[in-house]
């Protein structure tokens, strides 16, 4: 079959569309069904796109949470440039909705500047992903029934770096907006920098091709795919000399950090190498599991429909998630080789 044949088969007799009638129809439907937008801001998220971008959303959310958690857990000894944080193990930190709404974002304490912002993209296969990242990417030898490598897609995020500069002025302004008074930022923290490196990372995304998707709802494919396997260099945080005990003390004393959350973070035995995995207690449950011979965190959502396991090994952070049972997720995780 020639290119011309394909062209001919793919051609359809397009009927001229009446956009005004169609607009009237959609207007009538939106009013009749009282359909309301759920968006909160007009900016939206650039990441908030369907299809392959599903995993980008997950990555972005995980990265920002990990970054904040990292800032809250830094500990160690100050030198000129010191590695504050490099994950070797993971631990669950249960958080409540009060923790989420109360804690200020990164922007409240300073400025985050990306020197190479995360730009995830798709690649055709594992070999290309390995070439792009220089990583040996682990692949599953066991997949749940119905999930096939034939339906896999692969995404890559190159190494990204950012610099975070603390600012006493910004902290005061952010607190003032909330009618709160922030504890004064110690002079040696004001203006000090953290150098944050994340990635590279590779994501394997499997759909079974037969998932019951509604033919009438474009929103259906915004749901979780059957299986996602992510592998990346964990976040590395280095400092240009800030006194890190003071940094932890300062950040945990901020308004909005609940005493319970602060206590849990202080209780992490080795904060410079433990990746905290925030678990929203009202939406998910978690427990410690052994995966690939190391300690990992298993997370199940409260509906029982989705689950995930996260662990750190050999310098990488791994995550396996999907609309699968605990035993299926753990079987996939343990089959990675």
């Amino acid at each position, binding site marked *: 079959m020639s290119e011309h044949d394909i062209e001919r*088969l793919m051609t359809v007799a*397009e009927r001229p*569309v009446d956009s005004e009638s169609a607009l009237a129809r959609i207007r009538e439907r939106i009013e009749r069904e009282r359909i309301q937008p759920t968006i909160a801001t007009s900016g939206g998220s650039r990441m*908030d796109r369907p299809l392959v971008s599903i995993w980008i959303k997950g990555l972005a959310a995980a990265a920002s949470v990990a970054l904040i958690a990292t800032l809250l857990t830094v500990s160690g000894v100050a030198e000129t440039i010191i590695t504050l944080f490099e994950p070797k193990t993971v631990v669950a930190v249960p958080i409540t909705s009060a923790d989420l709404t109360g804690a200020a974002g990164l922007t409240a304490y300073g400025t985050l500047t990306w020197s190479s912002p995360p730009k995830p*993209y798709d690649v055709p296969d594992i070999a290309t992903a390995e070439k792009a990242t220089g990583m040996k990417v682990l692949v599953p030898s066991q997949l749940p029934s119905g999930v096939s490598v034939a*339906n896999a897609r692969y995404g890559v995020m190159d190494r990204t770096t950012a610099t975070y500069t603390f600012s006493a002025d910004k902290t005061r302004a952010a607190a003032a907006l909330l009618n709160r008074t922030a504890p004064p930022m110690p002079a040696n923290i004001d203006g000090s920098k953290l150098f944050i490196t994340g990635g590279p990372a590779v994501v394997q995304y499997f759909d079974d091709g037969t998932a019951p998707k509604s033919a009438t709802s474009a929103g259906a494919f915004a749901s979780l795919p059957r299986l996602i396997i992510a592998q990346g260099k964990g976040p590395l945080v280095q400092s240009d000399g800030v006194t890190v005990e003071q940094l932890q003390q300062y950040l945990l004393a901020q308004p909005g950090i609940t005493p319970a959350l602060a206590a849990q973070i202080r209780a992490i035995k080795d904060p410079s190498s433990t990746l905290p995995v925030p678990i929203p207690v009202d939406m998910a449950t978690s427990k410690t599991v052994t995966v690939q011979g190391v300690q990992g965190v298993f997370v199940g959502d409260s509906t029982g429909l989705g689950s995930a396991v996260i662990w750190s090994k050999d310098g990488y952070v791994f995550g396996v998630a999907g609309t699968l049972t605990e035993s299926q997720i753990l079987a996939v995780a343990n089959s990675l080789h």
Partner: protein
Amino acid sequence: MEAVAALRAAGAAPGLTAAFEALFRREYPRVVGIAQRIVRDADEAEDVAQDVFVAFYRKHPADAGYAPAWLYAAAAHTALNAIRSRERRGRRETVHTLERDPAVDPQRSAEEAESHAEVRAALARMDERAAALLVLRHSGLSYEEIAAALGLRRSSIGTLLGRAEDAFRREVTR
């Protein structure tokens, strides 16, 4: 804007914004065209386009820069979902098309219907991304537009398109 969202959440009457209407007028024909290449029926393609715009309206701001890319991808995937579920239910649509399209020349009409059914079946069996890629390309999207819609690198499109055409050939001639 948060105030607007709060008002809406409080039950204020929903309505289309000028930005949404402008987006609709601009993109509706193309969204229908993409869907029609898959479902091979003009009325059904318009139904798909309606669903796509409603889904967009629910969750996305009309002035988002990614809006066209989102709509094109959603059109392809929603239409592919539609033909897949139909393929699973059986191949009743061949008859359906014949009945709905009484062309002047019955033989030609039958041939066209058969070719439509073949293409639908082939697209339904293909990997979803490959099928979407092929359809978007034949709907007149540039490599840049396809890359944006499917979250791919511009430099990968040529290779992936070649593979998608091979897969399409295999499925049509199998």
